[in-house]
């Protein structure tokens, strides 16, 4: 990013100080009358002054084509737009347990949800469109309301997020499309017991799907396609029974990126289980991108400063840098000191009570004790498997590697240097200096600059799979999450055609 100082071409006012001993001097006060150049010519649409989240228009809606016998006939169903003009009105009228059923149409709303146990469902994922018009912040934002499920709709052009849960116990986002959003596509923050499934997310400078600041998170991310984002998946300071499974992460700057950092709470990132994913072609320098995405570009699964993660049976190919990269996260201007291993069991709730300390200008989060087993990797051009450290010798990090199908590693022979046992770390042998990865040169590289999220080139939005029985299924608040995942049954995915 480059921001040029504006050089004022205005006049200087010579203001004389009238009294004042040692202060007697002429002060030049730049009067800079030139506001104009920077006035946003945005003086805008007719809606100024109050297009807040509760205002909305359900444009172009038509009567739903739902069959005669529908969920809509149940007492607890609130129909939009038939009964309520806006999703917000229906949500506000709802009691816990209700189903807000939204018919096809474009809704210029930023919906706020503060009622527990709601189900908010679109009748057709591809025709129920929440559009922020680059002015509204979040498509649906769930604020401290527990067990809210959002299903079967699309959110686009929001300045913040498509779908956002914060401060909740129990959440589910299913069959959702998030397209062109200013921060994240589908986002859970400071929330536990959740599920994010059947998602298409494209065009966020941060992550298509993000779960942050939770431990233990107790959540599942499954059946996602995330592309053309800064990051496919990001999970800052999250983990603890957190599963990322059976999904595709492609054509982002970087694919799956759980990381640690003290800019938000509950560090380090730990105990995320990443299984059965297809991760490819994450070298896309044409996306919008936050700083971390710039730095992580060209990696499939990269764990900057994360610990105790399990990465198994993923297919990872076509990356300029690493297929699976266990690397440090250098954090300038940090907000706290890095916790020692004895603090990795501290829950997020406990962490909120601790006072941070100033650790100086820079901390380096080393990635440690991650387990990488049974993955299939090819054409990852720095190395299929990559380990690096800055503050310690990489041999002391405690990672282990076994049964991967790969061609290259850095350092060489990684599975001999750092083998796994059935449930732990084996005794390695060999020379860690042989083929050691030069992480500092990576950090010093130039990166393609971010592209404005509002105008970035994205693939045209294709019709996405609808949830089954949207019109007839009863309300299903998120009190049965996360779903059970039989990890043992997951096999390495096969390479998609093309």
């Amino acid at each position, binding site marked *: *990013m480059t*921001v*040029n*100082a*504006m*050089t*004022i*071409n*205005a*006049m200087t*006012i010579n*203001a*004389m*100080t*009238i009294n*004042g001993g040692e*202060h007697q001097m002429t002060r030049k006060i*730049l*009067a*800079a*009358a*030139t*506001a*104009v150049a*920077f006035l*946003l010519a945005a*003086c*805008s649409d007719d809606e100024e*002054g*109050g*297009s*807040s*989240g*509760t205002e909305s228009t359900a444009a172009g809606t038509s009567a739903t084509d739902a069959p005669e016998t529908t969920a809509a006939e149940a007492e607890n169903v609130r129909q939009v737009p038939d009964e309520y003009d806006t999703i917000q009105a229906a949500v506000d009228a709802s009691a816990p347990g209700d189903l807000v059923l939204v018919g096809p149409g474009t809704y210029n709303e930023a919906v*706020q949800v*503060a009622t527990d146990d709601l189900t908010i469902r679109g009748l057709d994922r591809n025709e129920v469109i929440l559009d922020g018009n680059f002015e509204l*912040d979040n498509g649906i*934002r769930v*604020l*401290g309301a527990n067990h809210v499920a959002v299903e079967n709709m699309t959110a686009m052009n929001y*300045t913040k997020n498509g779908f956002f849960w*914060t*401060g909740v116990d129990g959440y589910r986002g299913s069959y959702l499309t998030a397209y062109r959003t200013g921060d994240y596509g589908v986002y859970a*923050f*400071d929330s536990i017991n959740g599920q994010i499934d059947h998602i298409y997310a494209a065009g966020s400078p941060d992550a298509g799907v993000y779960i942050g600041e939770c431990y233990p998170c107790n959540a599942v991310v499954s059946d996602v396609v995330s592309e053309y984002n800064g990051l496919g998946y990001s999970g800052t300071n999250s983990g603890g029974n957190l599963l990322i499974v059976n999904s595709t992460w492609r054509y982002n700057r970087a694919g799956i990126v759980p990381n640690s950092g*003290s800019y*938000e*709470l509950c560090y380090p990132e730990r105990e995320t289980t990443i299984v059965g994913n297809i991760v490819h072609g994450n070298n896309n320098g044409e996306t919008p991108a*936050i700083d971390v995405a710039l730095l992580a570009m060209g990696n499939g699964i990269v764990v900057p400063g994360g610990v105790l993660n399990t990465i198994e049976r993923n297919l990872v190919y076509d990356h300029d840098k690493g297929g699976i990269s266990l690397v440090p996260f250098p954090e*300038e*201007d*940090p*907000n*706290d000191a890095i916790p020692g291993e004895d603090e990795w069991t501290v829950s997020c709730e406990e962490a*909120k009570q601790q006072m*941070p*300390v*100033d650790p*100086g*200008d820079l901390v380096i989060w080393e990635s440690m004790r991650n387990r990488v087993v049974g993955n299939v990797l090819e054409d990852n051009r720095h190395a299929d498997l990559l380990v690096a450290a800055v503050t310690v010798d990489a041999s002391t990090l405690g990672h282990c590697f076994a049964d991967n199908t790969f061609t290259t590693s850095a350092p060489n022979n990684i599975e001999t240097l750092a083998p796994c046992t059935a449930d732990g770390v084996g005794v390695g042998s060999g020379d860690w200096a042989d083929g050691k990865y030069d992480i500092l040169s990576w950090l010093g590289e130039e990166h393609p600059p971010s592209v404005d999220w509002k105008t970035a080139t994205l693939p045209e939005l294709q019709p996405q799979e609808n949830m089954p029985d949207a019109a007839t299924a009863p309300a299903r608040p998120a009190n049965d999450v996360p779903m059970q995942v039989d990890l043992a049954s997951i096999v390495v995915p096969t390479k998609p055609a093309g």
Partner: protein
Amino acid sequence: MSTRWWAAACVVLATAGCTNDKGGGEQAIVLHPPTDVTSLGQPDHPIAGPQGAVPQFVVECAYSHAAPDDPIVAPGEFGAAHLHAFFGNTTTDANSTIDSLFAGDTTCDQRADLAAYWAPALLRGAEVLRPVKSTAYYRPGIDVDPKSVQPYPKGLVMIAGNAAAEEPQPLSIVAWGCGTGIARAVEPPECAQDRNLRLIVTFPDCWDGDNLDSPSHKSHIAYSSGGDCPEGYPVPIPQLQFSVEYPVWGATDDLMLSSGGLLTGHADFMNAWTPERMQMEVELCLHREVVCGIASGRTSG
């Protein structure tokens, strides 16, 4: 005690396109000195550290414009103030009123926030540095019961920090930092490349319940301590922490604020949030104790 300096100047507002040029000719203008007022109290400690620990809502606003105007200290007097950098409302000038702000537009990502935010301009030599953006964090004051926090009354004005300070101000009110880090300093530190310099100003969080403004522009508001508002200021209001980000790294010795030396950091706020939205944010985020948003990780707006 402190040196008040009054100055007068005859200014030709001749710059083409100057929005504030009300007559085109010569005007006699009284330059107001930086206001020398100390707030009642200060936060118990600087508010810094990782986001996500306490309830908040956050608004990021692009830089709007600069002008030597101050609708709080020098209303109606164009060119009478030191140079200010304005954020949020795009119409802010010497004549701004709450009504005029509501008729304006905003640079903020929260469109219902039509408030005017401003801070002194930061100069490097003769060059005015164009800020990258501002971030407004709204939270309960330290240890204040979040459920007790009331929305700002429509039209409340506030000034935080002392524009005439000659000594370091409390870090809990005015501080400088790099990036989004925890470190706070009384003068601009040398930041690493790409870690933008920030001025961080923390506003009072208690209100007298009656006055939208006061002659000093500060005596109607005060800081809480120990989670309680002081006598005479019975209404807890959101604590606004306003941060301005500049594209400044490295050496700081040629920097100065338009209000005087580098110790004169301050910021101003005129509340023109749509009242319904302000109430909604206070209730949904602060009363429910939810982190409603996080300032983005982008270094550029």
